[in-house]
């Protein structure tokens, strides 16, 4: 009998990309996706590590087109929050590949579980919003935003990955294909006949935010508005969602939560708690001086 490990090793050897004739040397396997495998490779010309996404043998022509499109989308989206593509081509074994920056860091959800405070978590979320808003401004909808596709780097940089199912505005697509990850998919994405626009990414980001948010009412309201079932009830765009999160971080009223008088008082006290504490301290010291020293 051949062990599972031996079988896996055999599979790796058979499916390993043939990098002869390229500037890359295979280092190790990083991960497998639905249509492609990502390897760690060494770029021998520039002497740096890169991630190589190589199309699997078994996929059809549409997957090849999708990988090529993903590389083109990444090439046109030059933004600090979007993983840059370095190279695209065909290997000696006939498979398509592209080389991208090797991202070191942690998935957003694992990073969030490692203990950053609320401000740090929301600051990272805003950087994701910036990257996605930039893509929308260039006519690209991600359609598969989730913590697995967001990496937080060693120096706090945030990168949005896996643009494999992204759609370019105006591009035709078969309407019987459903793409995305159920927990982060908007209702309209689950219906094959529906038109999906930027608000599908707003929904996904709302679901991501819900995973990062604590019990603060305003933050929960922002996530709820972003994940409304009706697209017209959500934020108009990712920038509007980011702006509301920024207002929350600044201690201002948020669009997602109509305030009562008591909410307003609580928010005012939270925002100016230092000044209020100092005024109270002043009054206590003053009363002490008056009552004890008659000053």
């Amino acid at each position, binding site marked *: 009998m051949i062990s599972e490990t031996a079988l896996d090793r055999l599979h790796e050897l058979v499916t390993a990309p043939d990098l002869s004739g390229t500037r890359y040397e295979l280092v190790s396997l990083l991960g497998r996706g639905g249509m492609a495998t990502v390897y760690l490779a060494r770029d021998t010309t520039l002497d740096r590590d890169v991630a190589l996404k190589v199309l699997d043998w078994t996929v059809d022509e549409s997957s090849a087109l999708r990988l090529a499109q993903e590389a083109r989308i990444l090439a046109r989206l030059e933004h600090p929050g979007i993983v840059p593509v370095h190279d695209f081509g065909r290997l000696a074994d006939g498979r398509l590949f592209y080389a991208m920056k090797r991202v070191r860091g942690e998935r957003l959800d694992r990073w969030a579980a490692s203990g950053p405070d609320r401000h740090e978590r929301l600051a990272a979320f805003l950087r994701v919003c910036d990257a996605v808003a930039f893509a929308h401004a260039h006519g690209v909808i991600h359609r598969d935003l989730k913590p697995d596709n967001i990496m937080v780097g060693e120096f706090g940089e945030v990168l949005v990955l896996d643009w494999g199912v992204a759609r370019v505005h105006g591009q035709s697509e078969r309407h019987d294909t459903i793409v995305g990850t159920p927990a982060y998919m908007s209702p309209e994405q689950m219906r094959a006949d529906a038109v999906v626009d930027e608000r599908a990414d707003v929904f996904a980001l709302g679901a991501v935010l819900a995973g990062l948010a604590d019990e603060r009412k305003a933050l929960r309201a922002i996530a709820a508005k972003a994940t409304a079932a009706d697209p017209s009830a959500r934020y108009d765009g990712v920038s509007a969602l980011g702006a509301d999160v920024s207002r929350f971080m*600044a201690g201002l009223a948020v669009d997602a939560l109509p305030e009562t008088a008591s909410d307003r008082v609580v928010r005012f006290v939270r925002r100016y708690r230092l*000044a209020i504490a100092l005024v109270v301290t002043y009054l206590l010291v003053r009363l002490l001086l008056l009552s004890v020293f008659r*000053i």
Partner: protein
Amino acid sequence: MKKLAFATVLGGILGIFDGLTAWFTPEVRDQIIGIVIGSTIKGVVTGVLIGLFAQRVHSLALGTLFGLAVGAFFAYLILLGNPGHALNIMLPGSLVGLIVGYAAQKHRPVAAERRAP
């Protein structure tokens, strides 16, 4: 709220309370309105100077010391016109400056509204 506005408002509020405490001194109680107005103006001017300093110098120690100095200076000016109440004037005035100087350094202004890229 920016540092300048924050320090000015805080200085004004503490100035009002500073003036109101004159009610506990029976010999000046009948002049309380004038004292509150003067004390408020003093607090506002103190706040403006401390706010301007805090916009340029980002140091908790220096900001607090500057606040104390400005508060004491204005209190001394008041003392020159009202001799005989040194502690009643100098101590609260200096305390207001100290608190506003500390608060202005600690205050973080609200970030600018985010715009679409």
